[in-house]
């Protein structure tokens, strides 16, 4: 299936518009998907000027979205050109982010596009513009009326990581590690990999404690909680292994032996992923019914408007979305 993707500019004050202009001028991009740019014409034009690339806006009306092909543009008129302040957090910039996101999600929910790529948001701007959620992932789930399990997935090249706990204090991690939570994270990794086209993906589960607890000498969570879940998943014929000591599990990933690592806490996976590819990381809104991806980095106000932003992660996000949007959502593991 030739996928149709909606692309939104993210915060217009950051490097997002520039990144999308660079993306569109790369080889193989407009061939891989039909692309609908959802956002104000002047934002895209400014991004193209920053990037020093040519972007032709083929603006279409609402009524033409159903049949669009190639590269098209839906004009949004969310912000006056003079209100775009490069490298500044503004309410108007947050409003642009939210309105473009809402529209892209509407189109996806109506089946008019098969996936959404967003350039980096500025959370503070979105919050001031009415995000009213802890982050954009929770916002999107609520907007879509999705109540199932969903969680951010971090992607680097061919490796995905999901985590059992996230933005909580380290002292609270152990108490929040439980069997159902680990199982959900494993299933999410498995389902997302399947959707990206991996057959029989290998999901490695990281241990909580150093040396995986060394047989219970420093911590029993591996024995009491993690191992039983891994065994249960194995008995369901899933290719799941672990718990692996977390200081070497990413070497397996580097060698291509695993497709995903389920981590127990935030820094366990994020240290390794950002170390291995700070400029290539992608974030996927895991679990949502619509594939949504974004580069893992932020709006980079320090270099916004200069034309020097690295498009690598945006390209990775695009390529992953093309794969995900081209595959039907798998049955959620029972």
């Amino acid at each position, binding site marked *: 299936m030739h996928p149709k993707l909606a692309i939104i500019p993210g915060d217009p004050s950051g490097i997002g518009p520039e990144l999308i202009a660079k993306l569109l001028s790369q080889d193989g991009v407009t061939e891989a998907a039909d692309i609908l740019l959802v956002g104000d014409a002047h934002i895209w034009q400014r991004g193209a000027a920053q990037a020093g690339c040519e972007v032709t806006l083929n603006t279409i009306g609402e009524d033409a979205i159903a049949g669009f092909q190639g590269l098209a543009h839906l004009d949004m008129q969310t912000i006056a050109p003079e209100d775009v302040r490069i490298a500044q957090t503004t309410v108007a910039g947050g409003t642009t982010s939210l309105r473009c996101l809402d529209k892209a999600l509407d189109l996806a929910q109506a089946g008019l596009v098969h996936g959404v790529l967003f350039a980096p948001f500025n959370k503070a701007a979105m919050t001031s513009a009415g995000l009213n959620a802890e982050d954009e992932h929770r916002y999107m789930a609520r907007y879509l009326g999705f109540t199932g399990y969903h969680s951010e997935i971090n992607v680097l090249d061919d490796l995905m990581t999901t985590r059992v706990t996230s933005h909580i204090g380290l002292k609270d991690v152990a108490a929040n590690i439980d069997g159902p939570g680990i199982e959900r994270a494993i299933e999410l990794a498995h389902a997302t990999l399947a959707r990206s086209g991996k057959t029989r993906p290998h999901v490695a589960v990281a241990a909580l404690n150093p040396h995986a607890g060394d047989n219970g000498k420093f*911590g029993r969570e591996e024995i009491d909680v993690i191992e039983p879940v891994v065994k249960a998943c194995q008995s369901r014929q899933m290719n799941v292994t672990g718990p692996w000591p977390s200081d070497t599990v990413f070497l397996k990933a580097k060698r291509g032996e695993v497709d995903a690592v389920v981590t127990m806490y935030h820094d366990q996976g994020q*240290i390794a992923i950002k170390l291995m590819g700070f400029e290539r990381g992608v974030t996927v809104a895991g679990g949502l019914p619509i594939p949504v991806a974004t580069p893992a980095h932020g709006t980079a106000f320090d270099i916004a408007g200069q034309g020097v932003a690295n498009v690598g992660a945006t390209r990775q996000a695009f390529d992953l979305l093309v794969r995900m949007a081209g595959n039907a959502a798998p049955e959620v593991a029972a």
Partner: protein
Amino acid sequence: MSALPVAVTCGEPAGIGPEIAAAAWAELKGDVPMLWIGDPRHLPGGTPIAEIADPAEAVRVCDTALPVFPHRFAGPVTPGTPDLSLAQGVVDAIRIGVDLVRSGSASALCTAPIHKKVLQDGAGFAYPGHTEFLAHLGGDVDVVMMLASDQLRVVPATIHIALSDVPSALTPGRLRRVIETTATGLRERFGIAAPRLAVAGLNPHAGEGGAMGREELEWIGPMIDEIAQSGLDVSGPKSADTMFHAAARETYDAAICMYHDQALIPIKTLDFDRGVNVTLGLPFVRTSPDHGTAFDIAGKGIANPSSMIEALRMAAKMAAA
């Protein structure tokens, strides 16, 4: 290069220690003069050796043979099969190594892995580990463990404890001692006149202003500020996930980490085979390879000597600093 040899202890003779020492000598020879303390019967057959009675002879012979400062064990060894009757010899070799380096006959100590249980059962070894034994032999000093490679140096402030015990084990006194011992070690052992230290946060995003953990606000941040005001180039607490990529690593000489995996994930992911364990705070230089005895592959000739080679190189370099 130092004119004195690096003293290499044999470690657990049934493990991979003897073969990686022999392989390291074959790689380094005169580039890093060394002497091996142990029973020559425990070395792989065919290793060219030169038994020496005086450590000073090591530098002269090491181009053509592995200099062996012999210590007779109770018997030969079967690789992969630890023998309790050999345990006392392992402990003795460590003592001999420390004596050589403290008396000025060797430049530094590089220790091959021991197996704690074998030493406990065979020699009544009462220390929690190799490093604690050396801290005792060094005069009951406070030490810290550093993992070092060409690309990164990390020091975990807490080590082999459950993750749930980290917040309570990480006390202000401990963190301050780790920071200060590391700074002194970088100055004295690595020749870095004004070392730059980066301290990781305990919590994700270094707590993000108290939103996900308050230790950074309550005491880690204030302590770092206080130490910085005393003249040490120390920064933090930093978000641990963004302090280990290439550009970030250039901003510091060592990263102080709050727990084992926070330190070990980055260094092993970067440099798995080449990480070296360095003990700072001792009255002598001590390095060791960052792996265990590996009984399962001992004697098969497949053990990777990379970490041992790097440990020897680093020991010599540190001794010359």
